[in-house]
């Protein structure tokens, strides 16, 4: 299918998310759409898929101008989309998920599951995809869920397949398998659009690459006619920040020691997990999302109790202490979810900046808050951490994702605690903010603080960590020294129990 987008503009209220973009997608081609978060990639594809409507511009499929009133129209015209956040029903089986909204029906509107099963067997055989149709989707791994999403698209006989950040949740090996499937689609003459911000993947698989920045199309060309540097410059709109160099530094005393900790979760508990964290080092915890990292963090910070085992923080055992006591004793926490755990969105920047501080005397007089001191402190954080916001009294919800995250990072790091637990600290923020946050974490390390970096972004873990622990299936499957880590080794540990180092 040949798709042309002509002069597309999309507005959300006063914000122009996509600004006059024209783009062509050819059949039998893998088209990479790259750009920072918020560059308008997903919005453009949501428009193509009928989920948002353009303020201006036209969509032309195989020479015919089309206008959808719902995704149903787009699906009927041969478009399929694998969303970044999977669109699945957890309590339904794989089969039910695949037929939902495209059900083959027999008498009285009852679903003909047998017919669906026959067609899926044929599709699975043709594309070499295996998945158990009777399993409940909620029990599948992330990669298996993605397979279900791809089967959904194939079942609807899509000629154009859009994948939004499909590799964000995969191990390197699973990614290879996905790319094989996509090449298979290309050979079958389908058009494929892959939204990504990983340049390695673009260079590996794309035939054509389009770069978006701030809602505009910066460039669109065949991969052969451009270079990695050119694409990177297009994404950030200038030169890339240079690679970070690590100052050699001997780690100091153990400040956080975890011994045989187990934490409850649905099904089997996480653990036992044991490791030490020393002053002046960054220890990364890598792993595919959902392998026990979030439970471990909740156990460490005191959000959930340990079932067994111990935690010692600066020489004192803290496993029975609550969150506030652990924070007071020398722990800061940058949570993964800034919207719900990191910030109170309805409260002001100043109130958020002062939340959870132990130096109360500086900000209170008796039971009353000292607004002046709070505002001064918030202004200092805004300046030091280069947060773009109207001012300290603006609501936290008015900031962009990157600035919200910088506020959380600033609040936690200014507490100057011995231990910092950072959980996916750059999730969903733009390249500029990522670089800044990485720099701040590194600066903390260099000044002798200990940082536990839990991240599902393998590149981030490799770039920052002195040592890398890999979690798989609720346990630590191995340890790799930061200097000698390569993606494949860590990737292998991310998929097997390995042997504990």
């Amino acid at each position: 299918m040949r798709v042309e987008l002509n002069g597309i503009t999309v507005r959300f209220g006063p914000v122009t998310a996509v600004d006059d973009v024209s783009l062509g997608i050819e059949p039998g081609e893998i088209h990479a759409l790259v750009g920072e978060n918020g560059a308008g990639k997903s919005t453009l594809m949501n428009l193509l898929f009928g989920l948002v409507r353009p303020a201006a511009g036209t969509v032309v499929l195989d020479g015919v101008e089309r206008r959808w009133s719902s995704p149903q129209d787009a699906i009927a015209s041969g478009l399929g989309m694998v969303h970044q956040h999977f669109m699945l029903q957890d309590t339904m089986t794989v089969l039910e998920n695949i037929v939902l909204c495209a059900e083959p029906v027999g008498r009285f509107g009852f679903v003909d599951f047998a017919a669906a099963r026959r067609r899926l067997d044929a599709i699975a055989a043709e594309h070499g995809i295996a998945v158990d149709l009777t399993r409940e989707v909620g029990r599948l791994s992330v990669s298996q869920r993605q397979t279900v999403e791809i089967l959904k698209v194939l079942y609807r006989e899509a000629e154009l397949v859009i994948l939004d950040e499909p590799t964000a949740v995969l191990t390197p090996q699973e990614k290879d398998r996905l790319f094989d499937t996509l090449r298979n689609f290309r050979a079958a003459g389908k058009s494929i659009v892959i939204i990504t911000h990983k340049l390695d993947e673009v260079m590996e698989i794309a035939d054509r690459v389009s770069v978006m920045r701030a809602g505009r199309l910066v460039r669109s060309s065949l991969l052969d006619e451009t270079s990695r540097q050119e694409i990177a410059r297009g994404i950030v709109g200038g030169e890339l920040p240079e690679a970070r160099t690590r100052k050699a530094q001997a780690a100091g005393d153990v400040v956080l020691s975890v011994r045989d900790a187990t934490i409850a979760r649905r099904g089997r508990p996480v653990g036992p997990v044991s490791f030490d964290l020393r002053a002046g080092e960054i220890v990364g915890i890598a792993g595919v999302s959902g392998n026990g990292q979030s439970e471990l963090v909740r156990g460490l910070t005191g959000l959930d109790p340990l079932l067994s085992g111990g935690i010692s923080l600066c020489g004192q055992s803290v496993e029975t202490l609550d969150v506030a006591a652990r924070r007071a004793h020398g722990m800061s926490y940058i949570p993964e979810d800034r919207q719900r755990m990191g910030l109170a969105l309805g409260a002001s920047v100043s109130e958020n900046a002062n939340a959870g501080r132990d130096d109360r005397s500086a900000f209170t007089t008796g039971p009353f808050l000292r607004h002046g001191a709070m505002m001064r402190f918030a202004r200092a954080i805004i300046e030091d951490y280069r947060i773009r916001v109207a001012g300290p009294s603006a609501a936290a919800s008015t900031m962009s994702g990157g600035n919200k995250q910088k506020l959380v990072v600033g609040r936690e790091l200014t507490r100057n605690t011995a231990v910092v637990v950072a959980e996916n600290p750059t999730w969903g923020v733009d390249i500029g903010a990522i670089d800044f946050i990485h720099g701040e974490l590194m600066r903390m390390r260099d000044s002798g603080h200990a940082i536990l970096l839990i991240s599902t972004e393998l590149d981030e873990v490799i770039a920052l960590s002195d040592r890398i622990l890999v979690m798989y299936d609720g346990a630590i499957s191995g340890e790799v020294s930061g200097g000698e880590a390569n993606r494949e080794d860590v990737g292998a540990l991310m998929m097997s129990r390995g042997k504990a180092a």
Partner: protein
Amino acid sequence: MLDLLLDPSFAASIPRFVTPILLAALGGALCERAGVFNIALEGFLLMGAFAAVLGSYFSGSPYVGALAAMLAGMALGLVFAEFNLRRGGDSIVVSIAINLLAAGLTTFLLRAIFDVTGAFSDAGIVGFGPVRLPLIEDIPFVGQILSGQSALFYVALLCVPLMHVFLARHRLGLRIRAAGENAEALRAGGVEPRRVQLVALLACGALCGLGGAQLSIANVNLFVENMSAGRGWIAVVAVLLTRGRPWPLFFIALLFGAVDSLSFRVQGLGLAQQFTDMMPYLATLIVLVALSWWRARRARGETR
């Protein structure tokens, strides 16, 4: 007490109490599964009870009465959909409004149409008679329970397996479950969840309407103000306890209906009415506590 429980006439009275609760709960289950938090079942029931009397009185047929009750329930379902689904009103607020509306409207219409207050009974109201099931009525004990009930009881019984199969295998059933589980995914698939939820609300209204008809033109042949008397709320509890699954719902409704029936019985034995009236709610409380205790224990077992 044991004599009482084994008394066939007591057992035979249970279905009369089970039917309205079961029908309302089945309707509520559809809403629950579709992701509509509908706690207006009480209002739906009451409106149905009134409309059944109205239909039966003016037509002389209980079937027209039942039809009128279904339409009245669906009308309230439409009101719910308008304010909750289309205008985005909070479902609890909308539910409370509908419950109050049904109580006020039936009282007002009672006066406006029949010119009475409190209750309306008239020989012109034709009720559902008992349906005798040939072979089954000869089975000792069980036969006396299953045979000789109103047509609505058999409809309610039939609805349980039907709804089970409907939710598991029907296209609309699949979409109703999807609307309740992950509406955004349903929308991305090209089906508007609110449209599915509207259908669930209308079906819920019809089922509750039938439940109301059982109250006013099968159990008795009259309408009394507020005659639903909390049965809609018990149905809400049944729905929430079972998360809208038809078979567990059936057994819970059976239990609540039996206790409801028992409370009338022991009243005849001279127990204070204030106490017997509490029995269905006490039973609800006990089931709530027992279930949460059991679930907590199972959750602890999982982590071990």
